[in-house]
């Protein structure tokens, strides 16, 4: 809240106003968690990304001579490529940092590595690392802004932004979205962040659909219960998809989430058999129904669905470009 003071007829009035988010508010800030931005700031980023998408050429020199250090200590194809493309589309430059050739292999600690890279004067760092909390450690260690491109199983906040952007693109308004989050809800960081982010909007409803062993963690349901309407179902719910749903968001179920040995394999195979979206399951859905997936998908969606108008996951992935362009444009000091 911002406040304004008016002195009128011998009285002092204090007027409380919603803070207006400005572009300058973002300069030099880190984005390591979705909580780093307020609700209004998140919406500002989404609108900025939309402006970039609609006026792409206007941004072609926005990061001219600016340098991004992509520090991908863990393999990433899509996120890394999308950040690099975002930088190049705004005429920025990219520091070539290959972790396989770096001192990390010699046992250098992360804090030292990023402090060394900082001496080469990048304007922003983008970090992916396999350990939870690594992005905050990097942000604490350097003065340049840091974007978290995924820290272990913890946060992947740019994915959350692109998911929100995609929902807004599909429905024009995030408020009132009825969405089903499906698959690995226990370990999937994208569905956790998305559910929390959606709870900030009004009149949204979530159905959590998962095998018993991969249900949404209780602590997250506790956090959500006073903020958003939700219900839980087993995978059989996939046979009842109807016009009530605007969007379903599917996630990959990974073999390593199940116990080792034959019992674990049996359970995994059973889930794979049940967790398979087929063309025939979509007979009753609305014409503007959409399917999202953070990708990569494996066997959870029948390949024929890719060609149906409901499949929106490749557009969703493409939206990562506008979101990352928006973030780089806002955080980098010009």
């Amino acid at each position, binding site marked *: 809240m911002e406040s304004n003071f008016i002195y009128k007829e011998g009285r002092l009035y204090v007027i409380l106003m919603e803070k207006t988010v400005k572009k300058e508010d973002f300069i030099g800030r880190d984005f390591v968690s979705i909580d780093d931005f307020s609700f209004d700031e998140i919406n500002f980023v989404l609108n900025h990304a939309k402006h970039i998408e609609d006026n792409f050429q206007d941004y072609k020199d926005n990061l001219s001579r600016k340098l991004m250090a992509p520090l991908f200590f863990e393999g990433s194809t899509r996120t890394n490529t999308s950040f690099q493309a975002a930088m190049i589309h705004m005429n920025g430059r990219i520091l070539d940092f290959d972790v396989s050739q770096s001192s990390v292999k010699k046992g250098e*600690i992360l804090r030292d590595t990023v402090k060394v890279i900082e001496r080469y004067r990048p304007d922003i760092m983008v970090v992916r690392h396999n350990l939870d*909390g690594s992005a*905050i450690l990097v942000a604490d260690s350097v003065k340049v802004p840091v974007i978290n491109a995924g820290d272990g199983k913890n946060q992947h906040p740019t994915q959350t932004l692109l998911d929100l952007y995609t929902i807004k693109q599909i429905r024009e308004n995030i408020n009132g979205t009825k969405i089903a989050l499906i698959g690995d809800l226990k370990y999937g960081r994208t569905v956790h962040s998305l559910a929390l982010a959606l709870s900030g909007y009004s009149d949204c409803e979530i159905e959590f659909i998962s095998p018993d062993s991969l249900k949404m963690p209780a602590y997250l349901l506790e956090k959500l219960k006073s903020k958003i309407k939700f219900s839980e179902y087993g995978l059989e719910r996939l046979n009842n998809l109807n016009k009530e749903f605007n969007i379903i968001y599917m996630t990959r179920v990974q073999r390593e989430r199940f116990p080792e040995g034959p019992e674990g394999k049996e359970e995994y195979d059973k889930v794979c058999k049940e967790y398979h979206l087929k063309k025939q399951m979509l007979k009753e859905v609305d014409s503007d129904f959409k399917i999202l997936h953070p990708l990569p998908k494996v066997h959870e969606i029948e390949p024929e669905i890719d060609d149906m108008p409901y499949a929106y996951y490749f557009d969703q992935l493409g939206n990562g470009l506008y979101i990352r362009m928006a973030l780089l444009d806002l955080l980098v000091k010009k």
Partner: protein
Amino acid sequence: MNDKIIGYIENGIVIDHISLGKVFEIASLLDLGTQEGRVSLGEGYESGKIGKKGILKVEGMVLSNYEINLIALIAEHASVSIIKEGKIADKYRTEIPNVLKGIVLCPNLACISNDVNQMVISLINFKDNLFKCHYCSKEFRKDELRLRKI
């Protein structure tokens, strides 16, 4: 029962109002077995405030901030008296600090603060009876704490 029977000290510390069953845990964490001064400890004393309590007296000991924070985590609201020349020179209640640096380990084993190669000192924030790791942002309860013993 009168707590005086567990020994008079001239200089040192008295930790009183320790929750029942926690005296030996504190003695172990403070490594009192290696103390040169006389150590007296007792359990099951009557207390008007907490029912039954434990008491610990150590001759010649000075507590560091780290040790005070450890005591607070095990027995919140215990009282610590500093004894000088047979008299109470100072007395205070232990309270869990808002920030615990290097005292408690994050229970999330995948957290960077638990990776020995990264040499990160744990940093845990305490608020509203919940502990939250500064790095991985995981929240946890007191019973999930893992104390880092020096």
